[in-house]
């Protein structure tokens, strides 16, 4: 059994910003919200892994990406689960069977009629034109080929998973149709062989076929979609590599692999009022989840589709989440319940497919203080009872301390500190972690202290700061942390709030006259004396915070502009510091 359940490597999730018609016509690079910008972490089996950070830091996006709910820009997520059962399952068995039957029926019917009448059908069909050898065989082959081409195209369009086999069918079909030779029959036989290979259960019970899969145990989520099981290129046989291709399924559409994944990874949302459908009863919510994820038995029927069985399971779930008596809650409309009870239903629904990993996205943030503890306790109890692993997303460091074994602290799409919760709370290393811990209000009026808070707010994730993303707010920043042109402008703006600097504002301002470009900030000197402006800028820099002032490379006149340029930032890499990973130049 694997000990590491989730392995995230250099994950990047970007959300494209809306661009209007004109913008799109004019072109130019699309802009993205860099919600998650290169994070790596692992989740061990059976632990509570906390993703902690302020709003907009990407913690929810990171959590959702584990379910395949977000597009992935770069990197990969590997989820490996212990195998649940060894029974093979049909995917879309009905469609596949129907396709085979239809194809064989059409072929056989035409073969029969063509042989009997001896008609020269070639003229009627576009692919059967080369009638060099007379007789019904040619026509029959032409027709069979044509049907195959059409069938292959249809399969290709309808079922994303069957693109490669469809292409294969269509290709061979076309070949037969054009060749229209008696030995085409041989090719036909090969094709039948392939279809049989694709459509029959594998006696050895291994995950091997496109059309037939075992309950998947390993999923790899990448930019291209979800690669399932052993289907990664290096693990495939030459036959699979050449004729079937990687088992890639686009995340955007519905897919069987995605559904398998969702049965293993479930999510508890923050807002229970929005997570439940007001038109459904509690029982219906649970039934939907139970039925949608019921295992499919060979032959295509879902195993426990009988209503009584499903209802019994739903009642058991309600009992497990502490909604007692369960039969009373079963019939309730979700709108008739309090926030805490609704959240319990959301949890029960998440447990319905018997997941192994539960992403809890701020599960208690919307609940009242007096019932938060109970829901947290329930989550911890269920973890033992169901053998779950949690990814616990929260902005509340105090809650995270109570429930998490290991935590990762995120800031603006990056992991700033990650490791054992105990160690991080005892001795936070990253300045941001320290700031977060300090900002938590202490419910003890006798211990009031003045807090040293970082200035400002979380910057825009479309244009994250250079270097370390926390540097503009960091109390212990270094000159190499990534200072750039806009930091200088922010400093000027902040400085000019003070009325005593109004003459400087008159000389250098307004702030709109300044332009910042990456490492530099500049302003036209056509208005005013260039020497005075340079002197003013230097005077302002003298009073600037030390790291900012020291990071300035030079202040110079270039043509008609005064330019303040900064030195490039030092390379920032995650480092191991006292048993945890920290991304900070201090270490």
């Amino acid at each position, binding site marked *: 059994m694997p000990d590491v359940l989730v392995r995230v490597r250099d994950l990047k999730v970007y959300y494209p910003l809306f661009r209007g018609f004109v913008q799109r016509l004019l072109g130019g690079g699309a802009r993205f919200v860099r919600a998650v910008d290169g994070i790596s972490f692992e989740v061990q089996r059976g632990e509570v892994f906390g993703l902690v950070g*302020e*709003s907009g830091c990407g913690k929810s996006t990171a959590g959702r990406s584990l379910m395949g709910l977000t597009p992935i820009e770069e990197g990969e997520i590997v989820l490996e689960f212990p195998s649940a059962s060894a029974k093979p399952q049909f995917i879309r068995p009905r469609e596949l069977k129907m396709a085979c039957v239809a194809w064989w029926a059409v072929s056989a019917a035409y073969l029969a009629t063509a042989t009997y009448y001896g008609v020269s059908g070639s003229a009627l069909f576009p692919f059967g034109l080369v009638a060099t050898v007379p007789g019904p065989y040619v026509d029959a082959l032409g027709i069979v080929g044509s049907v195959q081409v059409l069938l292959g195209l249809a399969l290709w369009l309808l079922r994303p998973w069957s693109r490669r086999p469809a292409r294969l069918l269509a290709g061979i079909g076309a070949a037969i149709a054009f060749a229209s030779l008696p030995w085409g029959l041989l090719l036909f036989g090969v094709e039948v062989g392939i279809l049989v290979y694709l459509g029959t259960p594998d006696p050895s019970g291994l995950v091997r076929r496109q059309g037939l899969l075992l309950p998947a145990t390993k999923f790899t989520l990448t930019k291209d979609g979800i690669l399932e099981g052993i289907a990664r290129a290096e693990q495939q046989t030459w036959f699979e590599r050449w004729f079937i291709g990687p088992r890639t399924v686009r995340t955007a559409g519905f897919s069987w692999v995605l559904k398998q994944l969702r049965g293993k990874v479930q999510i508890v949302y923050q807002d229970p009022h929005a997570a439940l459908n007001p038109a459904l009863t509690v029982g219906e919510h649970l039934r939907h989840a139970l039925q949608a994820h019921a295992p499919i038995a060979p032959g295509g029927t879902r195993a426990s589709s009988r209503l009584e069985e499903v209802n019994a399971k739903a009642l058991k779930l309600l009992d497990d989440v502490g909604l007692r008596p369960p039969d009373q809650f079963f019939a309730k409309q979700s709108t008739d319940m*309090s*926030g*805490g*009870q609704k959240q319990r239903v959301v949890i029960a629904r998440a447990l319905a497919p018997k997941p192994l990993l539960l992403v809890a996205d701020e599960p208690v943030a919307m609940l*009242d*203080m*007096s*019932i*938060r*503890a*109970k829901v*947290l*306790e329930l989550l911890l109890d269920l973890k033992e009872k169901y053998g779950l692993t949690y990814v616990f997303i929260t*902005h*509340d*460091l*105090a*809650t995270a*301390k*109570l429930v998490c074994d290991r935590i990762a602290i995120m800031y603006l799409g990056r992991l700033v500190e990650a490791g054992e919760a105990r160690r991080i*709370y005892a001795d936070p290393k990253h300045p941001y972690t320290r*700031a*977060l*811990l300090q*900002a*938590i*209000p*202490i*419910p*003890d*009026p*006798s211990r*009031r202290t003045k*807090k040293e*808070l*970082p200035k400002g*707010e*979380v910057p825009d994730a479309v244009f994250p700061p250079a270097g370390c993303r926390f540097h503009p707010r960091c109390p212990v920043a270094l000159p190499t942390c990534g200072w750039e042109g806009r930091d200088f402008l922010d400093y000027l*703006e*902040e400085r*000019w*709030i*003070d*009325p005593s600097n109004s003459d400087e*504002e008159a000389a250098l*301002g*307004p*702030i709109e006259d300044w332009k910042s470009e990456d490492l530099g900030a500049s302003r036209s000197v056509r208005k005013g004396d260039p020497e005075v402006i340079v002197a003013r800028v230097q005077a302002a820099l003298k009073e600037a915070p030390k790291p900012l002032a020291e990071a300035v490379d030079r202040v110079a006149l270039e043509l008609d502009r005064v330019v303040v340029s900064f030195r490039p930032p030092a390379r920032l890499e995650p480092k191991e510091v006292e048993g945890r990973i920290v991304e900070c130049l201090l270490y």
Partner: protein
Amino acid sequence: MTLLDIEGLNVSYASRAGPIRAVISADLKIEAGQTLGLVGESGCGKSTLGKAILRILPDTATVTGSIRFAGLDLVTAEEPALRKIRGRNASLIFQDPMTRLDPLMTVRHHFLELIRAHEPDADEDDAMKRTRRVLTAVRIPPDRLDQFPHEFSGGMRQRIMIALALVFNPTLLVADEPTTSLDVIVEAQILQLLDSIKNEFEMGVLLITHNLGLIAEYAEEMAVMYAGHIAERGPVRDVFKEPLHPYTKGLLDSVIDLETRELHSIPGQPPDLLQPPSGCPFHPRCPSAMPVCTGAFPPTTRPRRDRTVACYLYPG
């Protein structure tokens, strides 16, 4: 000096299913330069109480009792008199700064509108001078006056709201969950700002929140509300040291902070205000409930100096 004196305040909302009593005979006092923290769970009536002070409740609400402020009884006062008070003597900061500023108006127009509402012939230059003063106080660059609310971050918007509330140097500021939608660091920033402004402007502040940590850090007096009633009232230090009402005890125990080792919670669910339990509304969840608790609501007693509590455990 008592700034605000609320006595026997009742607020009920008319609804199809019958009246919802959101505030029931509440008594509160706020002194000048003092922060009163009003704490309670969602639906306990704390926001209604805050809005009742400025009489900005919806038409379905009926208010009785008395709210004495600035020489007026705000319950009986007429609309023109109330208008003079709102935004001038008493201001309100709402929970969600994202939605409370008009997206179609620049910051300048927000301030102009407010100032002209009270002084119709105010000169724009003079108004902007005042605006600059309050914006400086909340550290917003005054040269961003002509920007729209969406161009500011959440914390900055809340600071603009605070600046709007401060234009006329009000004596009372009602802050209704002022930081609930903000991040922890920004929350601490805003509350530190409010604290320093309170001292600078000598205001009384009613801080409505569900977060006991904030009360502990920023309030001097506190009142705990449950199902429309004020369960307990007193100085913050004393209440945290020795909570009297079982609900206050339960609430303090259920706070999760960095030193929490064990989780505590109050059994049951907060009551439905349409059909509140008889007697003390807390009795179905109370660990020390007695037979008498189901009868009538307990009288408010004063078991300690400066403390009041409504519970049968503390008979007069």
